[in-house]
């Protein structure tokens, strides 16, 4: 494999970042398409020809099977989001948002993608940390893009909680550095992931364990694990929809990668009880998010809680080990795709109606024929129903959980059913529910006098075709993946799972 190809993954987003400063927004949207397609093709070429761990750019960056899975996820979702943004920018500018504001949109989005790539590919844990904190900062101004009071408050919570969380993660890295510096001395090598893995059993076990717990709590804040999650629904629901899709789909996985790295290091040193921490946090996260989903009244928050639930399932899978790890790795990719399409299509509804509450949105089947269908089936897919790819990931994880402990399996299964009822029931109401009854009640109670506005039928014909059809294509792609997963991708998943000690039973 060519090293230049690997350099290109970092160079392309950096180039897009530079272009976004100097270029007009509408030109930038074309350029962004080109860059995203190129990044996708580069990652595809790497994925096809990948056969062993490769170090590049002076040893500070590397690709192995695990970060390749996340890299594929990022580049695929980014491709769809770039196409969606193309239409999104045009419809928002037609709706009266200034061009200058969208210049910032592309600037911060590219900075976000760039720092995420740096973080994913870094071999050095210090650089990983820097990149992860940079993603928080780059997305901060995207979350407050609408400049409302709620969005500023959400951003505040997001930045302060994630910064403190990641600071605790830094503490974990400091302790790990102390441990490894007894083997390698105090240099950059002591932070290099590959070298740490090689040192393995020579490291002090108490301190490794301590560093894992600190990393789990610290980076876990950014993943959205249960006791530290309360920034997540606000931040993910306030940003523009393409940003929400990227935040939910890939940024959470980037933070999870940090925890997985510490998990791997503990595994290499022969410490096996970190897995109970992952199971515990995963289960708690599913539990909390399942009950939050049921009482949710805002649809973007609903999907944000669903991301939390899926991160819980993924963490649970990694904790259980074996076949569940394969499920978790598949879930990382499929969840990004499915959550992306949900956020993007709900963004269409939001853009046309300017209404966030579930009980105010009714009759999507008539007003938004395509977006409505995508939302409905997307909600089915995200809760793991068969015609969509997430079924595959979830079935692997559930098989692993049931094999491990049947009672835990039952509990998780009941929680997943709760999630399905909450999500699908609410979206179904939005899709077929009749608008009249609730509207009349509202008018009777409030006497706002704006009856004309609420009865106006909003149709999606006014929206740019890209933002209507991109989620649909993602939905079809997600359904297609259930029946046919390309062989190179399956190979990467299998090899990545092997690094956690997972095995594939058939095929």
């Amino acid at each position: 494999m060519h090293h230049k190809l690997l350099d290109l993954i970092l160079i392309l987003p950096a180039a897009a970042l530079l272009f976004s400063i100097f270029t007009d927004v509408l030109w930038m949207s074309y350029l962004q398409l080109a860059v995203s397609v190129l990044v996708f093709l580069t990652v595809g070429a790497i994925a096809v020809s990948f056969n062993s761990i490769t170090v590049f750019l002076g040893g500070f960056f590397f690709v192995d099977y695990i970060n390749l899975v996340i890299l594929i996820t990022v580049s695929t979702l980014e491709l769809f989001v770039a196409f969606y943004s193309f239409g999104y920018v045009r419809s928002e500018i037609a709706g009266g948002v200034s061009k200058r504001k969208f210049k910032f949109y592309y600037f911060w989005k590219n900075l976000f993608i760039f720092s995420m790539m740096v973080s994913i590919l870094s071999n050095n844990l210090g650089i990983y940390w820097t990149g992860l904190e940079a993603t928080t900062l780059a997305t901060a101004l995207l979350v407050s893009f609408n400049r409302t009071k709620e969005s500023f408050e959400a951003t505040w919570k997001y930045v302060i909680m994630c910064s403190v969380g990641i600071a605790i993660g830094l503490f974990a890295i400091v302790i790990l550095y102390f441990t490894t510096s007894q083997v390698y001395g105090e240099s950059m090598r002591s932070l290099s992931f590959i070298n740490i893995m090689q040192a393995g059993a020579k490291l002090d076990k108490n301190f490794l364990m301590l560093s894992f717990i600190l990393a789990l709590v610290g980076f876990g804040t950014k993943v959205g694990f249960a006791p530290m999650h309360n920034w997540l629904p606000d931040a993910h629901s306030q940003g523009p929809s393409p940003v929400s899709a990227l935040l939910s789909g890939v940024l959470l996985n980037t933070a999870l990668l940090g925890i997985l790295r510490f998990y791997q290091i503990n595994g290499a040193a022969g410490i096996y009880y970190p897995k109970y921490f992952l199971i515990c946090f995963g289960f708690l996260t599913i539990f909390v998010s399942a009950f939050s989903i049921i009482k949710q009244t805002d649809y973007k928050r609903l999907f944000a809680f669903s991301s939390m639930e899926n991160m819980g399932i993924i963490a649970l899978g990694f904790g259980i080990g074996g076949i569940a790890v394969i499920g978790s790795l598949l879930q990382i990719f499929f969840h990004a795709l499915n959550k992306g399409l949900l956020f993007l299509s709900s963004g269409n509804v939001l853009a046309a109606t300017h209404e966030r509450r579930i009980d105010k949105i009714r009759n999507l089947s008539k007003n938004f024929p395509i977006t409505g269908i995508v939302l409905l089936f997307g909600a089915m897919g995200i809760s793991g129903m068969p015609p969509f790819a997430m079924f595959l990931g979830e079935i692997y994880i559930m098989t692993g959980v049931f094999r491990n402990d049947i009672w835990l399996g039952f509990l998780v299964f009941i929680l997943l059913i709760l999630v399905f009822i909450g999500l699908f029931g609410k979206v179904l109401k939005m899709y077929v529910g009749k608008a009249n009854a609730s509207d009349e009640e509202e008018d009777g109670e409030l006497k706002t006098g704006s009856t004309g506005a609420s009865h106006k039928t909003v149709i999606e014909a006014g929206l740019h075709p890209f933002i209507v059809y991109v989620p649909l294509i993602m939905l079809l792609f997600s359904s297609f993946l259930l029946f046919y997963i390309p062989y190179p991708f399956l190979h990467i998943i299998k090899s990545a799972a092997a690094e956690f000690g997972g095995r594939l039973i058939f095929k």
Partner: protein
Amino acid sequence: MIMEKIAELFIILILVSVVLNVSSPFIKFAIKLYSFQSLMLAFYILMGAVHFNSINLYGSFAITIIFKVILIPYFLFKTLKKVKMDKEINMYIGIPEAVVFAGSLTLLSNLIAQKIIKTGITFGSFVFTISLATFLIGAMLMITRKTLFSQIIGFLTIDNAIFLAANSITHGMPLLVELGVLFDLFVSILILSLLILNLRRNVAS
């Protein structure tokens, strides 16, 4: 020997400045204290640099002075001037209770540090105790105070504690990593200041 004593003095002054911070409701004073605290941290790093004669630590000293002692307090002062706020009024627990609480947190971190030493590794346990105490008191500041500025100060205190820990159990992180961390910290303070201004404007209008 004498150098160690001087280094310990700097460390004690860090803890004193954090406890002073807990006991005072004035925000301007808190920012000054933070600057002072960072200066003490920088001097501690300088002592290490002279003692071990390490270029890494000299660099660390320089960037700590630039970012933590000068740039961050300067921007915080600038924001404070625009916001026109002088006193923290919203606190969940009163100042006397908070000071008692800070004292007990210091004791607690001493116990924790002793326990870690018992597992067999000995390092600058005194410094580690202080850094743990600073960490916990910083977290307490964030939890008990509602004003946005106090939360920033709490966050910065936590950050200083981690830097202190990095310099106590090791001789500081590699310079490149430290530079990245400080730069991120600086940008996050800029963004938080921007958010304070915007939130203020939204409340006013």
